[in-house]
């Protein structure tokens, strides 16, 4: 509708390889960038900014899981556990050694990646269900270890208080500063993933997902690339865990229970497996869902339910909707929100002359 794809000639390899080869793509990305970096923070009140912060964290985590599940086809039900590894590593480094954020964030990621590789080692022998159960076991074992090792968990109630990050001598204690901080990481994660999946490594991942025996035959070292996938995915998870810790100012293992792993699985499925944009959609959708339900229940819930049990009903309603949505998307639209978006876009690409 707004643009035609004809008439743009790519005369260099660089032009052909660009992330957004068409001007309309570049313009829309710039527009979204301006919207979220300039306009939204100016006009939104702190409550909605805090939701955007959560979305930014969720984007990082969801991208990590999508690399593993959507691109490499290895299921993990232990994503939240890797997040907790990152969170506690960083929390200990920050409180005990006084490390700044630019050291704490990557080291949390690297620690999570190391544990992720450890969990990924069985993935050569086992797959599908067996891998799902092995990662589920990893979730429980990591949870238990953190909870029962005072050296990691800080002892009292397994939680460590963490000071706000300091960037260029400025303590980020306002919501809007934190928003920019987290958004920066989300953007880095998005760009890194977009480039990763079209690199040699990313293509190897996709080959393994589609048929791992065939991938091995054409010369991909399946074991090594599966471990890469686990490492990269857990690195993202670790970083998301550190960011969440910074956001909450506390590292607490209860923020990283198996329910959170399932939230991330839901993000990736609802958003769209094997798509960067899908992870973003999924992160937004799953983070907003409880907010929308809460607002709805606050407004209309009193008509249907006793106010005493309203909070409980809201939580239960969220779970029901959540499970139903996962099943719905898997049965009806396996490619998720990303496919819906593509359908809309393709419809309007040739609109109104669609013949």
């Amino acid at each position, binding site marked *: 509708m707004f643009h035609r794809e004809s008439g743009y000639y790519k005369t260099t390899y660089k032009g052909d390889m660009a992330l957004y080869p068409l001007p309309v793509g570049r313009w829309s990305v710039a527009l979204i960038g301006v919207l979220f970096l300039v306009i939204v923070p100016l006009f939104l009140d702190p409550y909605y900014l805090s939701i955007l912060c959560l979305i930014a964290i969720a984007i990082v985590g969801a991208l990590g899981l999508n690399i593993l599940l959507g691109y490499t086809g290895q299921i993990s039900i232990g994503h939240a556990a890797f997040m907790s590894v990152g969170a506690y590593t960083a929390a200990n480094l920050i409180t005990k050694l006084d490390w700044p954020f630019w050291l704490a964030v990557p080291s949390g990621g690297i620690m999570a990646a190391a544990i992720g590789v450890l969990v990924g080692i*069985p993935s050569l022998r086992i797959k*599908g269900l067996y891998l799902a159960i092995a990662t589920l076991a990893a979730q*429980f*074992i990591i949870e238990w270890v953190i909870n029962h090792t005072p050296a990691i968990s800080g002892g009292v109630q397994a939680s460590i208080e963490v000071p706000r990050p300091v960037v260029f001598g400025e303590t980020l204690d306002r919501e809007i500063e934190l928003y920019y901080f987290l958004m920066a990481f989300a953007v880095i994660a998005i760009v890194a993933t977009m480039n990763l999946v079209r690199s040699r490594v990313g293509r190897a991942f996709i080959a393994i997902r589609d048929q791992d025996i065939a991938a091995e035959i054409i010369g991909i070292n399946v074991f090594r690339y599966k471990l890469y996938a686990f490492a990269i995915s857990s690195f993202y998870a670790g970083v998301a865990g550190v960011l969440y810790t910074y956001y909450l100012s506390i590292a607490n293992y209860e923020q990283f229970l198996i329910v959170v792993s399932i939230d991330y699985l839901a993000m990736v499925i609802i958003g769209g497996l094997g798509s960067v944009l899908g992870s973003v959609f999924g992160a937004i959708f799953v983070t907003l869902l409880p907010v929308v339900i809460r607002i709805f229940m606050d407004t209309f819930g009193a008509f249907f339910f006793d106010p005493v049990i309203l909070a409980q009903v809201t939580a239960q*309603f969220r779970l029901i909707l*959540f499970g139903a949505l996962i099943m719905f998307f898997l049965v009806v639209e396996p490619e998720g929100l990303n496919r819906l978006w593509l359908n809309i876009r393709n419809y309007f690409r040739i609109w109104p002359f669609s013949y």
Partner: protein
Amino acid sequence: MADFHWGFFLELVVSGVLIGLMYSLIALGFVLIYKSTDAINFAQGEFVMIAGIIVGACMASYGLPLWLAIALSVGFMVVFNVGLERTVLRPMIGRPIVAIIMATIGLAALLRGAGPFFFGSGTRALNLPIDDAPIIIGDHFIYLNPIHLLGAVAAVLFLLGFGWFFLKSRKGVAMRAVADSHQVSMAMGINVQRYFALAWVMAGVVAALGGVIWGSLLGVDTQLAVIGLKVFPVVILGGLDSIVGVIVGGIIVGVVENLAAGYLDPMVGGGTKDFTPYVLMILMLMFKPYGLFGKPIIERI
């Protein structure tokens, strides 16, 4: 160990075996579905929970007698599972296994929300009409919980029944054929879809029974679903598609976690019960991924 008491050890082992058999009962539902439809059910614990909640709600809120409550619960599970098979699992036949796993994870979330949503979220007691004074055996004072005993007996009966069903009965043989190859069984004139539904129905019935037994032990609320997490070590240890494996795996898990709770907990401060079965399971996955009695799968392009 200076203060090693044989009586204590024996008690742990015996009650471990009984609890293990009750785990087997729940794991049986999982294996039934896997064996015949190749689908992985991560919501088995939630089935048990919802069945237990229905029995509890029928008895507490509507004052129905126990047998009627159980019958209603079984009926609900049958209808629900047939509907589930129709609407969710059947369209997903032939899709990657990961997709089916995630669908049942979604189902688990849905049931966890729906149970308390429709039946109230308080914990209800589910009292079976049996004396719950512990049974004392021998002069070593081994205490047995009669509910454990009842659960174990029911589990063994069910397991024997299903063993007979799969080995001897016509329907059971057809079901194994369906599990082996959908296409070949169709060519042999077996109505594959009907057997899929039958498998889910049987899993629902087993779950309802498990819900009654575990519910009477632990009380009925959403926490009952946590039992489902014990299913995985059991089936991995025993082998995914073996009924004998379910029994053996269940007993191993029950005994190991009881011994861990008895001997390791005082040393490390609790919680070993929940994760020792998983450690055992990971060791099994590393050395013998198809379990003690499972059938290895050979993969071709």
